[in-house]
C-alpha cells in the first residue's frame, strides 16, 4: 500500500495541474476504489461511473484538500463513497436498468464476518467490532460496506424498522466508546 505521503503529494500535484499525478493516484488506488464501489453498487457499469466521477471531482477539487485536515486517502475514499451513495440513492428511486444483476458482478457473498477478518489484527476497529455481538457487528458492516439502508437491514435481520434504528445507534455508541 502506498504510504500516506505519496497520496497527499499526488493530490497537491493535481492541484497544480499535473495529470501524471492523477494517474499515479489512479494506478495506486483505482482498482480498490472500483472494488469499494462494486460492493456498494453491485453493477459494474455503475461502479465504473462512480470511480470516473470521483476522479474528475478529485481533479477539480484537489486544491481544496488540506493535508493538515486529514488523510489524502481517506478523502479519496470519502469522495468515492459519497458519489457511490448518490448513485445508489438515485438507483433505488429510478429503475435505470431492467437487466438483472449478473451473478458474477455482485459481491454480496462477501459476508460481514469475512470482511472483519480482513481488517488487520492490531487495528482498533477490528478489536472493537469483534467486541460487539455478531448481529450488531453485521449491521454496521453491512450498512457501511454494502450500503444497506435501515429498511434493508431490518429485512435482512428480520427486525422491525424502529428497532433496527435504535439498536444500530446503541451499537454505534458502543463502537465509539471502544475506539475513542
Amino acid at each position, binding site marked *: 500500500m502506498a504510504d500516506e505521503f505519496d497520496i497527499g503529494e499526488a493530490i497537491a500535484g493535481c492541484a497544480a*495541474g499535473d495529470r501524471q499525478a492523477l494517474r499515479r493516484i489512479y494506478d495506486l488506488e483505482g482498482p*480498490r476504489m472500483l*472494488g469499494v464501489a462494486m460492493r456498494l453498487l453491485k453493477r459494474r457499469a455503475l461502479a465504473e461511473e462512480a470511480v470516473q466521477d470521483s476522479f*474528475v471531482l478529485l481533479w477539480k477539487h484537489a486544491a481544496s484538500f488540506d493535508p493538515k485536515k486529514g488523510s489524502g486517502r481517506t478523502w479519496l475514499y470519502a469522495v468515492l463513497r459519497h458519489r457511490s451513495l448518490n448513485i445508489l440513492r438515485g438507483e433505488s428511486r429510478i429503475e435505470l436498468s431492467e437487466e438483472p444483476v449478473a451473478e458474477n458482478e455482485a459481491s454480496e457473498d462477501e459476508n460481514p464476518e469475512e470482511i472483519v477478518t480482513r481488517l488487520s489484527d492490531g487495528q482498533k*476497529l477490528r478489536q472493537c467490532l469483534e467486541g460487539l455481538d455478531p448481529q450488531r457487528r453485521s449491521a454496521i458492516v453491512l450498512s457501511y460496506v454494502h450500503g444497506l439502508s435501515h429498511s434493508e437491514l431490518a429485512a435482512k435481520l428480520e427486525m422491525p424498522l424502529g428497532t433496527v434504528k435504535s439498536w444500530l*445507534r446503541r451499537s454505534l455508541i458502543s463502537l465509539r466508546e471502544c475506539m475513542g
Partner: protein
Amino acid sequence: MIDRPPTAEDARDLLAAEYVLGLTEAADLPQVEAFILRDAAFAAAVANWRARLAPLDFTAASATADERIWTGIEENLGVAPNPIPNRVAAPTTAPAAMASPPSEAPIRTAPTPSIEPRAPAPRRPAPTRPDAMPGLWNSLAFWRFTGLAGSFAALLLAAGLGYFMREAYRQPTLIAVLMTPDGAQPAAVVNAFADGRAELVPLSNIDVPPGKAIEIWTLWDRAVGPRSIGLIQRAGRTSLKLEGLPKPQPGQIFEMTLEDSGGSPTGRPTGPILNKGEATTAL
C-alpha cells in the same frame, strides 16, 4: 461492552455516524450536509467517523480497472467548467460591461472575455473556483441562513465533501455561480431546470441602498444583448423570468447590477455589476 440508549449529547454524533454509514434519509441529506458546513464540531464528528470506519474500505478486493475507465476520466478533465476569466484578467471596474452607450446599437464594444474563445488559463490552486460550487449551492436551503460563515475557501475545507450534495428530486440542468468582481466571493447561484424554470439563490445579503434595486440579466448572444430577467429589492430567492427567451445554454452569462428601484430605464444594464457568472452543466 457498553450498551446504553443515546443521550442528547449522543444525538449529534449519531447523526454524523449515520451520515458516514450512508444511512441518512435522502430527504434529510440537505439539512445534514448544511450542518457540516455551519458547525465545525459536527464537521469534526463526521471526519472522526470517517477515520474510524475507513479501514473497512481497505478490505475491498481490487477489481480490474480497464484502461477505458481512465480514458473516460481524461475526457472529462479537459471539459471542466472554467473559472470566470475575470479572475485571471482584471475584472471590469468600469460600470456595467454589458452596458452600451444609449445611442449605439446594443452590441457590446468592450471586450468580453467570458464569451470569446480563450486560451486555457494557467491552472493554479484556486479554492474559489465556481465549478466547486454547483452541487452544494443548489441543494442547500442557504437562503434560510443569514450570511455565510467565513470565507468560501474555509467553507470548502470545513465541509470536506458536503459540496457533493445532490438533491435527488430537483436536479438543475444548468447552474451559474455569480461571483463578486474581485472573484473572491460567490454571491449567488442561478439554477435552471429541465422544465424551463430558473431561480436565483443569493448566498449572502446584498446591500441595496434606498431608491435602488437589483436587476438580474442574462446574455447568450451579443447580437441580442443582455435581457432583464428579474428585479428585486433585496437579496432573496427569486424565480427568474425566462419565458420567451431561448433555453439557457452552457456559457450563458448571468449577472446582477444595481439599478434605480424601477429597474434600468434603458432596458440595458446601466449600474455597477454586483456579480457575474457563466452557466455550466451541473455534475
